[in-house]
């Protein structure tokens, strides 16, 4: 007799190593102080599909179990003797279950029958058995803090003796597919605001009034009557407007009119849109200069999912960096993985779509992972956020086959509420697909709207609006999205082939705002669209029409296909097992028209939708923070200080994180994050070649220095920009536009992440100062792009990075990340940071100033200081040009940029690659010894030159190069000043201090396993 529900339990055979169980026991002891005794892990599969006993047994033993590793139990959930308690980790209804899906694939193969893989028949779970008889509260802590997240997992705990409670989700059964009407007329201002808050529209009063007025207008009324819509807006219409007008999608604050006052100088001015003034116009000016000099490689900026520049006559480089902060705060793993996959979709769906992804980068900002205080309600421990985000990046990048080539981690307690998770992706696209320009998005009325990839569920509803407000303890569970890298990989493979066969007219990704956003934006090109929502395939029944339209279920693309190509593209989708659904067509009647089963659920004027949002007027006031230089005791021996710096949170090795990312899949990574014979020399920028046929490639860097913003946001932004530029110069890159038609492209993304910067006397009393910081950050950006002639090609702003709970608000410091890419003509000429040979001469390039303000050195003393490093763009540019010329002549053997920890830390790091030492004599200058060693003045490098090249090098660099000493064989770093030895350490000791720092320790990598 066939039974329709079965359970399969896999346990490891006696004697097999249970790494998973062991890690749970260790983590419980280490992070929660709980003694679990032995922990055994088991995999559980619940199968809701008619199977005979033989079929079930065959499936379990031949498909799921590894004959070498596993014992199989069928239809019994029991524990081996000796285990007192258990934790069952299942998924909540509707949460993505890739393991279950794969098991279904396997079942279909062994049965040799078609089995709808889009309906969930198999549910995977994990069972942990604990030796010790822990009380339920302790079991819950282990379950909730180490094993699962309450928002996505269903957790059962208890005593084995009481029977193991199983749980299998039953998704669906929710609301019927009805559309409600919400009347706005007659509502008071307070009621409008209340409505916005209750429904998570994230619209302010003025915006709500504009919506009310649109629907009240006689013209609208007449149109609605004619089209058969109710007088009042539908729930779907309000959701579409809220999504389209969200800060996340509309960048209202970057477009606002800002009244700026400098209280220091008395200067007052009005900024007519930060984006237009400081980003768009600045790039237009750069483009003008580039073109005047025959450099016409800037192809597409700001107007698509990613920016595009020309590599050579045949191909484009596409580059996008985004953030995924709010989701990562409440579900770090899911937030990070959907961040990566979502950002991947941007270059994939730029222009026609189908670019080939080349690499990922990521920059992460976390609170101190060793935090020991009390957490706020709903706040996750920073260590948990770090580990979850790290794992999300691992799976998001590795499982997509995209190398993670570069990144950074910044720690600051103010990121303990909301972490910042920046994801960047570079891609290569041919200039043409089937004879059409690949970067263009063209749509005509009549073209079909095709949804491709994953199905739609309740996941991610309100993501766009939710990320536009501050986080609090009531964050909705539906805002969480779970990524499925394998689903996206299939869609990505399909998209590449469909584009190359000329089957796509264009495409875009479904990210924030789901179909509402993707179709709404594409409809702007043709002038309208009709969507038939009942056709959209769902993960499970029970979604209302508006939910289907705004759901942010992942791994989906919206494709534009000409009717005549439907048959061919449908066949390709079937061949590659990617679900394609025709959900409507584009029009040119000026309306976004959404229907369900033929009945209208939304009909909005496109002009109102895209241009009807009222403009914000914001106030900014700049007061210079009072700051003073501290008295720090002068030392004669700074060896101990250097060791402390190397082991400090913001400088120490990230090897344990880096090695869990695949940084060389595709076989094109030339400069990796860690290099040298030891594999432990940190590099400044990554270098990746484009293909195997030429040596052309791209250098990739990230500049971010939030702590300088506490002294001056302008200098912080300028310094971050310079840091990213000099990292590319360090690896052998060259500034753009130095010679006519040199074709050295640069493509930069700016990503601003700031706290709520809209003034409110009660809830945000320092809002004007915060906004002034943002204005200053943008001013620096404009100055930097002009000075270096480097264009911005895309970017993002995230405006409400605050976490509020229990009456406490944790706000991120104003942060900007500049993510830079630049063409490398020949990757074989790349320069790495580590010393190459004994007797090479060591130089400091650039000028050191009395600029210890905001330094890691001061931070050791708990001081901030006052003298923040400033960028002299003209001097910096002159130096970068000379370094480029020196590289043209092959004069530089190693080059490392000076940043956190200054010269002393750079000296130590350059010895990490092989075991060479250095003999250094600091010059006599006006600067104090501590300043010479630890100042973080910008635009500086530590470079080495072969003895035979010293004359040529010094002639070229002149007084911009200060000779410091030479590389030695003895593995000893010795620094002398004024006749005294001020640092003397074995480089192995320095490296051990660096590798045994808090990050590697936290992630469980001990010194013996790292140093060799």
């Amino acid at each position: 007799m066939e039974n329709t529900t079965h359970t399969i339990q896999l346990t490891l055979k006696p004697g097999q190593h249970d790494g998973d169980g062991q890690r749970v026991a260790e983590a419980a002891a280490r992070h929660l102080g709980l003694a679990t005794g032995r922990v055994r892990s088991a995999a559980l599969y619940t199968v809701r599909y008619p199977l005979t006993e033989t079929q079930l047994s065959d499936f379990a033993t031949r498909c799921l179990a590894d004959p070498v590793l596993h014992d199989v139990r069928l239809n019994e959930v029991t524990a081996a003797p000796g285990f007192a308690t258990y934790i069952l980790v299942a998924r909540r209804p509707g949460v993505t279950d890739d393991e279950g899906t794969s098991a279904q694939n396997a079942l279909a193969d062994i049965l040799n029958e078609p089995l709808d893989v889009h309906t969930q028949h198999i549910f995977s779970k994990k069972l942990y058995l604990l030796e010790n008889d822990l009380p339920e509260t302790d079991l819950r802590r282990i379950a909730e803090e180490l094993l699962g997240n309450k928002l996505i997992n269903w957790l059962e705990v208890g005593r084995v003796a009481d029977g193991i409670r199983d749980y299998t989700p039953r998704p669906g059964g929710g609301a019927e597919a009805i559309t409600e009407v919400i009347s706005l007329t007659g509502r008071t201002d307070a009621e409008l605001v209340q409505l916005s808050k209750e429904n998570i529209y994230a619209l302010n009063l003025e915006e709500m009034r504009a919506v009310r007025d649109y629907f009240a207008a006689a013209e609208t009324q007449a149109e609605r009557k004619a089209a058969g819509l109710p007088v009042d807006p539908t729930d779907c219409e309000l959701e579409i407007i809220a999504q389209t007008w969200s800060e996340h999608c509309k960048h209202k604050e970057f477009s606002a009119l800002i009244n700026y006052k400098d209280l220091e100088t008395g200067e007052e001015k009005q900024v007519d849109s930060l984006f237009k003034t400081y980003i768009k116009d600045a790039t237009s000016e750069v483009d003008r200069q580039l073109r005047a000099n025959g450099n016409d490689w800037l192809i597409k900026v700001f107007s698509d999912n990613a920016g595009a520049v020309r590599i050579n006559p045949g191909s484009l480089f596409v580059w996008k960096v985004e953030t995924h902060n709010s989701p990562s705060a409440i579900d770090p793993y899911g937030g990070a993985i959907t961040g990566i996959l979502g950002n991947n979709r941007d270059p994939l769906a730029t222009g026609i779509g189908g670019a080939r992804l080349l690499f990922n980068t990521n920059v992460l900002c976390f609170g101190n992972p060793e935090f020991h205080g009390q957490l706020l309600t709903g706040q996750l421990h920073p260590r948990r956020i770090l580990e979850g985000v790290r794992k999300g990046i691992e799976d998001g990048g590795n499982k997509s086959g995209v190398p993670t080539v570069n990144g950074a981690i910044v720690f600051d307690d103010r990121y303990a509420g909301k972490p910042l998770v920046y994801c960047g992706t570079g891609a290569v696209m041919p200039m043409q697909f089937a004879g059409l320009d690949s970067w263009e998005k063209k749509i005509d009325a009549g073209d079909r709207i095709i949804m491709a990839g994953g199905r739609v569920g309740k996941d991610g509803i309100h993501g766009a609006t939710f990320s536009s407000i501050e986080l609090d303890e009531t964050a909705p569970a539906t805002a969480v999205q779970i990524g499925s890298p394998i689903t996206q990989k299939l869609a990505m493979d399909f998209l590449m082939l469909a584009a190359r066969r000329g089957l796509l007219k264009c495409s875009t990704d479904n990210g924030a705002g789901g179909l509402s956003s993707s179709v709404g934006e594409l409809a702007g090109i043709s002038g309208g669209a009709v969507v038939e929502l009942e056709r959209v395939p769902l993960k499970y029944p029970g979604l209302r029409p508006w939910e289907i339209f705004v759901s942010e279920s992942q791994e989906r693309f919206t494709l534009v296909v000409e009717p005549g190509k439907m048959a061919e593209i449908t066949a390709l989708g079937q061949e590659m097992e990617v679900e394609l659904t025709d959900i409507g067509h584009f029009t040119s009647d000026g309306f976004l028209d959404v229907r369900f089963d033929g009945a209208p659920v939304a009909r909005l004027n496109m002009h109102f939708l895209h241009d009807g949002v009222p403009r914000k007027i914001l106030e900014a006031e700049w007061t210079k923070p009072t700051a003073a230089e501290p008295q720090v005791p002068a030392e004669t021996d700074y060896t101990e200080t250097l060791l402390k710096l190397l082991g400090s949170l913001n400088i120490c090795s990230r090897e344990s994180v880096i090695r869990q990312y695949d940084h060389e899949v595709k076989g094109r990574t030339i400069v990796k994050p860690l290099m040298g014979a030891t594999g432990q020399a940190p590099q400044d920028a990554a270098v990746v070649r484009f293909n195997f046929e030429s040596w052309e490639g791209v250098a990739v860097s990230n500049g971010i220095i939030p702590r300088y913003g506490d002294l001056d946001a302008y200098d912080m932004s300028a310094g971050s920009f310079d840091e990213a530029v000099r990292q590319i110069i360090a690896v052998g890159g060259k500034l753009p536009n130095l010679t006519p038609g040199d074709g050295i492209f640069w493509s930069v993304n700016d990503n601003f992440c700031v706290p709520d910067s809209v003034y409110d006397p009660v809830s945000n009393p320092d809002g004007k100062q915060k906004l002034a910081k943002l204005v200053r950050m943008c001013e620096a950006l404009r100055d930097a792009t002009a000075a270096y002639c480097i264009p911005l090609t895309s970017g993002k702003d995230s405006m409400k990075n605050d976490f509020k709970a229990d009456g406490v608000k944790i706000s991120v410091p104003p942060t900007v990340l500049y993510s830079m890419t630049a063409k490398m003509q020949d990757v074989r000429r790349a320069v790495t940071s580590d010393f190459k040979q004994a007797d090479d001469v060591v130089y400091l390039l650039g000028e050191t100033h009395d600029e210890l303000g905001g330094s890691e050195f001061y931070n050791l003393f708990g001081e901030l200081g006052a003298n923040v490093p400033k960028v002299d763009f003209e001097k910096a540019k002159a130096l970068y040009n000379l370094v480029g010329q020196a590289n043209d002549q092959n004069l530089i053997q190693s080059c490392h940029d000076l940043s956190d920890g200054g010269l002393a830390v750079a000296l130590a790091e350059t010895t990490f690659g092989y075991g060479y030492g250095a003999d250094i004599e600091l010059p006599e200058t006006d600067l104090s010894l501590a300043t010479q060693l630890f100042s973080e003045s910008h635009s500086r490098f530590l470079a080495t030159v072969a003895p035979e090249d010293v004359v040529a090098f010094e002639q070229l660099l002149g007084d911009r190069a200060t000779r410091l000493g030479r590389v030695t064989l003895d593995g000893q770093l010795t620094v002398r000043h004024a006749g005294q030895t001020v640092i003397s350490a074995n480089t192995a000791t320095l490296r051990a201090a660096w590798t045994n720092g808090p990050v590697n320790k936290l992630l469980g990598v001990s010194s013996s396993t790292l140093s060799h």
Partner: protein
Amino acid sequence: MVHALILTGFGINCEEEFAAAYRLAGAEATIVHLNQVLHGQVSIHDFDILNFPGGFSFGDDLGSGVVLANKLRYRQNGPDGRTLLDDIKQFIADGKFVFGICNGFQVLVKLGLLPNISGDVTPEVTLTHNASGRYEDRWVTLRVNPVSHTPFLKGIDTLEVPVRHGEGRLVIPDAATQAAIESAGLNCLTYADFDGGPTDVYPFNPNGAALNCAGLTDPTGQVFGLMPHPEAFLSAYNHPDWARRRRQNPAASEEGDGLKIFKNIVAHIAQKNTVTAPAVQLANQN
């Protein structure tokens, strides 16, 4: 011309560098979606060597390579109930070659094509989670077992390559199987320390594999698989220490160590093909 078939799709992601390796070695490489083979649009028998690249086939959700191996073993293609594994057995019996890297190696092991001591293609060993419990990308040194006799490794003594996996620990269930593997030299590659000797010390042995084994062949030497990625070391500039090495030896070859394996097998097949019948006409799959 030697013809290499490289499978892709369903999460496989190292197909491009795999194809580049064959092209650099002078062969013709064709990348084909697995469904094109399963649905009969492409026949493996038109090729000289069948290749399973690395990646995360089906997300590795049930264990690395499991779902793909399952598909090859059980999915019946066409009315005669033939599986792709049936075709692969025929392919090997015809004297042709099968090569798996990383996830591809895992597939060959889970299918039982490696080590295949018994000759009946049932799983005899397995590859599972690294002893460290984590995925790792790091470079290792391999030593070729002098007892092994596969043409893939001819003339190679040691080899530097990156590993990039979370489930590369070879587990051999019993002493008899281990003895059979060792006596036939099927454990053709061993993780080595700085002195070139086999080692069980992390991170030189990155996963804690039995016999410190990084790769296996079958008794014929025609089927070969390994956890590390030779196709990621086609150019000297892939090595983490390339810059210092080129300084020491500017005249050194610009080829990477990994390319040697591909050159070996391409040369071997080319030579074999010249003494036997010319290759059959090929369907154009580009």
